[in-house]
């Protein structure tokens, strides 16, 4: 099956299509993780984006549903150099994409697209499966709205609140597009979880008498998570507030700090992060926006820094009892070394 990937800069690449016939358009982003492709594709933070793997062989071990981070693929489309049609002991990615209406393209020079992204910044793109009209694909790519204008969170957040009962401390979770393993990591510590949709009102949360507030990861521009920012503001200084990824960004926004769109973001499972004055961790990351550390108020401290580019990877406020990180301690995919320190610490700190 023919397929074409069009870029807003006028270039396009023709390749072999797989999965469903049809088209999608959004930001083209790359991740450098070499395994864990299904964890990434099902990560709700990739909503609105076409996900490209820099590792040329994808699908080698098939589709491992037990490791999905949400019930379905959330990335709009998938760009690979080669997709494996004969994995051992699991359904193959091509058939899964076909059955579940996901768009894929293989046989393209992903490295050259990665370099292009690195040089020019994240590109808007369109993926057409079943056709190879490059000019049309470019046009579609050019029509893509900037990601800052898109309401992506509502597409992946839950619509109704739900509870995951636990014997331990009550945590209110605002779901901006939560990864399954965040829930698992909190549950493993016994937390009693009340999960709320992204547009939850403060009084709805208040009803469960939370001992802590937890903000999850999510897609797109954090400034669009207005309700969540509002809730944080109300809880600041009342109960501890924790967050991961977009959770980090919305917490910063609640403090009045600023976030910005990165040139091409951090996506992969090899990002070195240093805790202030201490240990270095290798972390999994997936973000295209970041917190501008200089805009944080004085009582906030930059707690984690990226060693590659010096960007903010987490901050804390002792006074307000806030701890958030930009990377993914819940892993899946990627290194697990921050899971225990992070989740143990935040859970322990809840009074």
């Amino acid at each position, binding site marked *: 099956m023919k397929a074409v990937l069009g870029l807003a800069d006028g270039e396009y690449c023709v390749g072999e299509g797989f999965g469903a016939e049809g088209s999608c358009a959004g930001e083209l982003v790359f991740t450098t993780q070499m395994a864990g492709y299904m964890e990434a594709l099902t990560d709700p933070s990739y909503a609105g984006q076409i996900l490209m793997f820099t590792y040329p062989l994808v699908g080698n071990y098939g589709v491992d549903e037990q490791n999905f981070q949400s019930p379905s693929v959330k990335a709009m489309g998938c760009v690979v150099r080669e997709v494996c049609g004969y994995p051992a002991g699991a359904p193959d990615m091509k058939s899964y994409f076909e059955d579940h209406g996901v768009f894929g393209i293989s046989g393209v020079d992903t490295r050259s697209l990665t370099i292009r992204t690195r040089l020019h910044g994240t590109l808007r793109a369109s993926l057409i499966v079943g056709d190879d009209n490059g000019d049309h694909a470019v046009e579609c790519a050019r029509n893509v709205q900037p990601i800052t204008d898109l309401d992506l969170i509502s597409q992946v957040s839950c619509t109704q609140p739900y509870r995951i009962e636990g014997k331990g401390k009550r945590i209110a979770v605002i779901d901006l597009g939560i990864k399954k393993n965040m829930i698992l990591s909190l549950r493993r510590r016994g937390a009693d979880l009340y999960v709320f949709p992204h547009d939850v009102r403060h009084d709805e949360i208040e009803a469960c008498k939370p001992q802590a507030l937890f903000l999850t990861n999510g897609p797109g521009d954090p400034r669009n998570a207005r309700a969540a920012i509002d809730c944080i503001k109300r809880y600041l200084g009342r109960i501890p507030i924790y967050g991961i990824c977009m959770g980090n960004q919305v917490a910063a926004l609640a403090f009045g700090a600023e976030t910005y769109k990165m040139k091409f973001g951090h996506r992969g499972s090899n990002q070195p992060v240093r805790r202030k004055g201490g240990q270095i961790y290798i972390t999994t990351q997936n973000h295209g926006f970041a917190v501008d550390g200089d805009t944080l108020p004085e009582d906030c401290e930059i707690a984690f820094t990226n060693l590659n580019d010096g960007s903010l990877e987490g901050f804390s406020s002792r006074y307000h009892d806030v701890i958030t990180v930009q990377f993914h301690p819940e892993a899946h*995919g990627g290194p697990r070394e921050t899971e225990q320190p992070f989740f143990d610490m935040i859970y322990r700190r809840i009074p």
Partner: protein
Amino acid sequence: MPRLPHIQKVLLIGSGPIQIGQAAEFDFSGSQACRALREEGVEVVLVNSNPATIQTDPEMADVIYVEPLKADIIAKIIEKEKPDGILSGMGGQTGLNLTAELAEMGALAGVEILGTPLEAIYRGEDREKFRTLMEEIYEPVPRSMILNHIDQIDEALAQVGLPAIIRPAYTLGGAGGGVAHSPEEMRRIVEVGLQRSRIHQVLIEESVLGWQEIEFEVMRDSANTCLIVCGMENVDAMGIHTGESVVVAPILTLRDDEFQLLRCAAIKIIRALDVQGGCNIQFAYRNGDYRVIEVNPRVSRSSALASKATGYPIARVAAKIAIGLRLDEITNSVTGSTPASFEPAIDYVVVKVPRWPFDKFRRADRTLTTAMKSTGEVMAIGRTVEEAFMKAMRSLDTDISSHSSPNEIRMVLSSPTDERFACLFDAFRTGFSVAEVAELTHILPFFLKKIENIVKMEEVLKSGAASDTIRKAKRLGFSTEEIARLTGRSVDEVEAVAGLPTYKMVDTCAAEFPANTPYFYSTWEDTCEIVPQDHEKVLILGSGPIRIGQGIEFDYCTVHAVMALREEGVEVHIVNNNPETVSTDFDTSDRLFFEPMQLEDVVNILRKDHYAGVMVQFGGQNSVNLAMPLEKRLAELGLATRILGTSPDAMDMAEDRDRFSGILEDLGIPTPPNSAAYSETEARAIAESIGYPVLVRPSYVLGGRAMEIVYDEVELESYMKEAVRVSRQHPVLIDSFLQDAVEIDVDAVCDGEEVLIGGIMEHIEEAGVHSGDSACVIPPQSLSDSVIGRVRDYTVRLALAIGTAGLINIQYAVKDDVVYVLEANPRASRTVPFVSKATGIPLAKVAAKTMLGRKLKDLGYVEKEIRHVAIKEVLLPFNKLPGVDTVLGPEMKSTGEVMGIDYGFGRAFYKACIAADNELPLEGNVFISVTDEQKEEIVPIARKLADHGLALYGTSGTVEALTRAGIATNLVRKVQEGSPNVIDMMRRGEVNLIVNTPAGKKSRQDHYEIMRATMDYGIPYITTMQGARAAAMAIDDITTQEITIEPLRHYHDNS
């Protein structure tokens, strides 16, 4: 934390000679470590016995000792140099063991052990300690039991069961280990294993045969930051040593959760071991269950592979960590902007395939087990598994015999030998299914499917050559030549469709950051990352995988050529495919191509940029063989690139018997009578007229068998029938064999006008032993001035007459005061590094400069008169290769070399012997068995040994001869006659030296068995009369003179 301020001077121990299980990777790692330490202002003292290493070059370390790697000698060096620290993990297991020994003998007072702590050395190697540690941190290891004595075998059978794996402690590459399927097999392997182990200990453990084998290279610094540089997956399942396995990187078949399970374990282990630096950890994995198999708390062959596979310089970073730097304080030299505290992300597939020496050892047991037998390896990079497989196969440069009988294929697949990887292809060609092959081999269907894809593509190509098919085939790694052959089209036609490859960069980060590394591989993609630049460049061909006859010496020469050209301000690029070497370190040259080195691969590189020239004479036979076809192809393509140095035509002149004889005749230089035979009858006639014995060799080699000395017509006939296919195109060359002649090797450089003689080496072994296997000495010891004068004269005239530009090696034989030229090779020889280290003249560098047109008189080097004696001794692989014939002959068998240097022949020879692990005894028992013709010659030698208090033993004939000469000798039976014989004595540890010259055909069996036992029990041995004489002289000298412990510079400055 900045580097430790009190560490100003560090001792680095190299790994010694190249041997099976320990190849060039430690020169690569050690050299990188030297550079890294000196960058930090640390003074480096280096000791290594191997002269053919870059790390022993004057530029590499502050003080260099080429001395035997023995604890007592290193202790003396420590006493003299007073280093602040010792870097233990850079010299392989040899380095670690020596560090432990030095610590045990108290020689490390005031010397800090850096990198791998003593306890980690013990825990990594001592099985019991390893196991205890793993149990402490709840990491699973296979059920096992330690044996210190053969009597414990029943207990082991009960506790561990069968099949079981046996591993001796403290051996290289697991030598002496194996897999036992029956109690008898277990007894046999354990017996040998106990002998081989330095501490007489073997481990018997639960067999995890058939499980997946996964390896991690882990780094850790003093701040406890840990990271995985590279995960690697063995294509061959557990049961085959990882050094013997086809390996891919990154790990391709594990899910992320499976990968992370092992990653967590790996980090836990390196922390428990408290290693500061690099560590290799091996796991067996099956369905969510795993066992920790092995931990190497040091750099290794795998870490070299991981460095080349990812671009992450493990040894460099490990050395900096060892002196206190943290990972985040070290810059990733690839990106130049990000710190070393990250995990490389790669965007290609790396495949490593081992290279075995069985083309040289037809009689060796070729089965692959948990002991290493391979001498080297190749690495290939592609964007698909298929491409990487195909490129690796092309890089191997070995005759692969194909199999078509299903039964034979089944046999090779189920009991793996060196042929297995190629046989997988044959299996699919003959219609085996993936499932069948998976069952026979335990190889995952994922990999088999890739091979099946390649075979299917062969079929498609055979049936037609649509443009689209050709492009697909290219992406699967087919060479243009293969496609042409399969489709029946011409190379040019195929190329017109396929075009040229693109080159992609190895950058540690999958293009996330801009990289400065000039490290490339070819693949078939849309965008090429090489931007041609107008200024001229030179490409140097490397030597490929280490094999017998083409060892580290050629990598040494390649690196020197690079350094010389850089000194001259020329941009220089390298193409090579051996991941262990210094030449493939990405900052050795201005640009590195990790590629196969067939004509097409080399030409493609030359077409991508502007190259003024290409150098073929440093990479050994392979690259030299490319000279002619390369010249032709360059002309066809109209490229301006020239072959630098000696012209291909001149090389041919030296190679072609008729042309060469013509030159010698013109110059009036004697050569042994010789001729080429085009039929069996002709061969008989020629041999008759020359007179037996004759040296015969085919111009076309079948199955790796080459040169032989034949003593009569019967032998000649059987040689002609078995070994060669004689035809009009492929004559057999017959030379008169100069029995008992002295052989001489000369390495020289010629600039077209003048000749610089680097060194004249006298062989210690007699003519007939391959020059690569013979010990040799500089300066010559037994030659008259007149002979040496003629050797000089012939060398100068011959080098000029051939038209040499660059290096030339000439071999001579001297008999009855006549100097004969045996052969001349206008290229780098394996003795170049030895000559350079012995004399201090950087011969390869000088040669490279002359190849650019520089003149010797301007470079300012003259032949050196040296006052010291330097001896090259070789390392033979017999103890690693069961079943191999130990008799030295015209076919090369050694894997590596050492140098002994001192102010007298005896002391230098003594050092060379120790360094080659063939320690001459100063007390104890010597067993002597020589042929009847040698009985007289042995008398003075035996007398010397007896005079020094050594007790002599022998079989009847020898004892009789010696007693008659008044030397007391004890009688033992011949092996054939039963007990008590010498093998019984060896088993009891009562023999300290064996002198046993190969006998006539009749008592070959005795010789063979004695030598086998010698290998198994690790007893020093000598198999030539000249060797025995030198040994006696050495023992004589060593009892009266102290050996000299001085750095190399001391000798060079005193010349």
